[in-house]
């Protein structure tokens, strides 16, 4: 399965829904809660997110080559081949 990475916020309801969905599907993923980062670490991650999603909104989910912005169950399933 393609690697899954989530750029998220610790407080965001859509980010929580996305993580819960992937947990329920027993899909492994990496995530970074950007609101918990500060200074240069935050700036560096924001630059990385902008490459995938210029709007820098959350969650931004990367599945292999695919970028899914927001909590979209149908798109997640398709990208994961579920």
């Amino acid at each position, binding site marked *: 399965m393609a690697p899954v990475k989530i750029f998220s*916020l610790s*407080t965001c*309801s859509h*980010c929580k829904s996305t993580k819960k969905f992937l947990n329920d599907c027993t899909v492994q993923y990496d995530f970074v809660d950007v*609101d918990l980062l500060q200074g240069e670490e*935050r700036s560096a991650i924001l630059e990385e997110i902008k490459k995938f999603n210029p709007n*820098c909104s*959350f969650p931004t989910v990367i599945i292999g080559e695919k970028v899914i912005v927001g909590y979209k169950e149908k798109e997640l399933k398709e990208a994961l081949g579920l």
Partner: protein
Amino acid sequence: MEAKALYEMLKKVQEPKGYYFSNDRERVMELLEALCLNKERYGYMACPCRLASGKRKNDEDIICPCVYRVQDVAEYGSCYCNLYVSKEWNDGKISHDYIPERRPASRMIF
């Protein structure tokens, strides 16, 4: 302020204006707790679903209720976070699609 107290206070003020809390109570309480947390972090209740800069002047449009709520509830029946919704949304008369981010990228100054 605790989330429960915030719930009661905001409900009284917002419902007469046509903005209802989503009937997904668990989600609403999580969002209200996040608003309380952001108040502690930043000194104001920045939207929990957006990245706040921590500088009030850059975040003014996303202090809850954000300036985008009016248009989002009118168009989609819900605010960006699914915290405030219309009666029709709660009654299931509107499909619960993901609300696209209306905030322009130019306003996002981190």
